[in-house]
């Protein structure tokens, strides 16, 4: 597995089962997803009505950036008032499902992408803003452009984790996405540096189309006036900047780009952990090899001539 899935596997498999006609039973499960997202899957009214609620820490910020519209677009008829303690709920009635299989699969897919869609709102907004700015900017030359057009819009901050945030800023020729990350573990920091260097170098080598990636330990200039940005420079907090160019922002690519960039943090951490696992497996292998060398180096016990009771001698073969 190179890339992480975008959808929640549990929701997907559960709904798929139910929609395929598995016996209706009551469900009551609280499950987690990345970044402290909590889902509550339950059947509050009847066994055929599955309600899925999501709670995430940055929901208010996301609403500010248009999450409600995105959710209404995606889940329109399924939205129900949010459950107590959760931010957003959808409910699927198994008795009134779309008849054909494709529509059902699409429904399952959409609901399992709940977290992705909630988080997508600020990206979509920024991409739209980019488009507007691009049109605006095409009217001017770089000198005559009025203030604001060249500099781009406001910075959208999503504090999706305790000490980490995503900042999105649209300009007339690009969209900049900045992740602030925090490594509590020193080993992880080292691994992280290696990985990030690879990201930075990727463009230089084969993949010309890749977005430009920068990383630094103090806050980049884009975030200068954003409240809450810590510019410690201590190395614990790092800033990773993705610069998305117009070619990444075409309508065809858009969805994919949003999905990818959202999972970046988890992807990054997953791979740090996977490489540690890989190194561990090499270490185990090496230890086993050394042990074998040691075992072989042990001198054989001297073979003495043995005698039978009658005085004949024989040699042990081999």
């Amino acid at each position, binding site marked *: *597995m*190179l890339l*992480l*899935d975008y959808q*929640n*596997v*549990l929701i997907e498999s559960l709904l798929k089962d139910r929609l395929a006609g598995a016996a209706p039973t009551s469900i*009551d*499960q*609280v*499950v*987690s*997803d*990345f*970044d*402290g997202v*909590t889902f509550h899957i339950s059947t509050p009214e009847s066994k055929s009505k599955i309600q899925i609620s999501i*709670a995430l*820490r940055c929901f208010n910020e996301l609403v500010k950036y248009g999450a409600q519209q995105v959710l209404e677009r995606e889940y329109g008829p399924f939205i129900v008032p949010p459950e107590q303690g959760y931010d957003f709920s959808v409910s699927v009635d198994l008795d009134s499902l779309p008849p054909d299989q494709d529509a059902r699969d699409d429904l399952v897919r959409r609901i399992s992408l709940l977290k992705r869609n909630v988080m997508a709102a600020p990206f979509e907004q920024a991409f739209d803003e980019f488009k507007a700015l691009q049109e605006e900017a095409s009217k001017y030359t770089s000198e005559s452009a009025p203030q604001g057009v060249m500099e781009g819009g406001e910075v959208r901050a999503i504090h999706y984790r*305790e000490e980490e945030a995503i900042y999105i800023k649209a300009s007339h020729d690009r969209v900049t996405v900045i992740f602030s990350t925090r490594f*509590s*573990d020193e*080993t*992880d920091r080292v691994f992280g540096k290696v990985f990030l260097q690879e990201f930075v170098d990727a463009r230089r080598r084969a993949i010309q189309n890749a977005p430009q990636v920068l990383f630094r330990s103090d806050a980049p200039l884009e975030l200068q006036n954003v409240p809450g940005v810590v510019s410690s420079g201590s190395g614990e907090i790092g800033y990773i900047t993705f610069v998305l160019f117009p070619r990444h922002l075409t309508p065809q690519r858009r969805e994919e780009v949003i999905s990818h960039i959202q999972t970046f943090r*988890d992807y990054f*951490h*997953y791979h740090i*952990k*996977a490489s*540690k*696992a*890989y190194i*561990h*497996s*090499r270490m*185990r*292998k*090496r*230890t*086993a*090899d*050394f*042990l*074998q*060398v040691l075992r*072989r180096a042990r001198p054989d016990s001297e073979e003495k001539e043995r005698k039978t009771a009658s005085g004949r001698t024989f040699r042990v073969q081999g």
Partner: protein
Amino acid sequence: MAPQTPAVVMDNGTGYTKLGFAGNDSPSFVFPTAIATKSQGGGGGGSGSGRPAVANKPSFLTGGAGPGSHLSGKRGTEDLDFFIGDEALAASAGPGYGLHYPIRHGQIENWDDMERFWSNSIFKYLRVEPEDHYFLLTEPASQYHLNYSAPLNPPENRENTAEIFFESFNCAGLYIAVQAVLALAASWTSSKVQDRSLTGTVIDSGEGVTHVIPVAEGYVIGSSIKSIPIAGRDITYFVQSLLRDRGEPDSSLKTAERIKEEYCYVCPDVVKEFSRFDMEPAERFKQHTVTYPNGKSVTVDVGYERFLAPEIFFNPEIYSSDFLTPLPNIVDMTIQQSPIDVRRGLYKNIVLSGGSTLYRQFGRRLQRDIKHLVDERIAASERRSGGAKSGGLEVQVIEHKRQRHGPWFGGSLLGQTPEFRSYCHTKAEYDEYGPSIVRRFALLGGPGST
């Protein structure tokens, strides 16, 4: 931390892995503990697979891993090319992948595979950042008591597990619980259980082996654990052999397994059950329809195996010729070997756990047979004592709804308690003391905690 993240409960068994979050009543995922990797790598860990792993030169002179090492070819992302669980079974059916089971007899054998198995469980299935969550893992049974037949986990295994969880995954906190103790905790949901004690006898019957494990105050009495080589798989084989003998149109293992799961039950008396079957064949004999992927289907008759199959627990001689002690006798022997002051508690709280204890009437029959043995012994000693009267001994077998995933459910129950986190070892403690810290855990759910 805003809302507390639920603890992750993982129960990695020989056959199946149960994954989920504490507080839920069933695991989110249950899939085989299997991993499919690119076939040529036989697995590291120095299993001595016959392949010359060491060249003439020590491998550090040859640059990377030594020649012939399965790692030498791995320069890209091959180490991520694997599947776990059901996907592994599917992948191994095709070309290029070999299937491995990293856990054997309840113990982790291949740490490389297990580490990747965990990594995938966490990131692909549970989708959690291990740094944010506490983990509750399970292990077979107590340590320190060395008894070859018992399901034991050496403390080194715990340490290895801790190394992986703290160093690879940086998990926030870790608790490793003994499966038998968790199975006892799971039985607290039964209405028969009045006091939430951690004293009892756990009968854990899964796919491979059946263990009878006495637990006193949360500690496993390792010296009296007994194992029986009869479990789920044997019942399946037995059903299969009966089907074959009758010449049924389909006698595959899969069919036998389905029949076992759907139709089998435990009867109070074999002879009477036979005659009952002969009296009312219409009700007792069943038919099982097997549908093949190509659309065809055949019908298999289901007869005496309905009650004969689980009967091998109580009369093993009908199945095996080398193991002849019935399960009730084993339970009785186990308890008799335990310290005398806990025996009453052990008889009173016999808890079932695992998929092979789910047959209807299993608990009742077991209780009756054990009670019979106990009463006989009491009667004999009363006779010998000449007139003394015994107060009797209560034997109670507890069946409950969460039996199938007993250890997991127990873990879920204990993992959601507010004090769970204080029982865990945290990453900071691990960094301070090293892996040996996990050799000891405070007893979760013990006296005074819940």
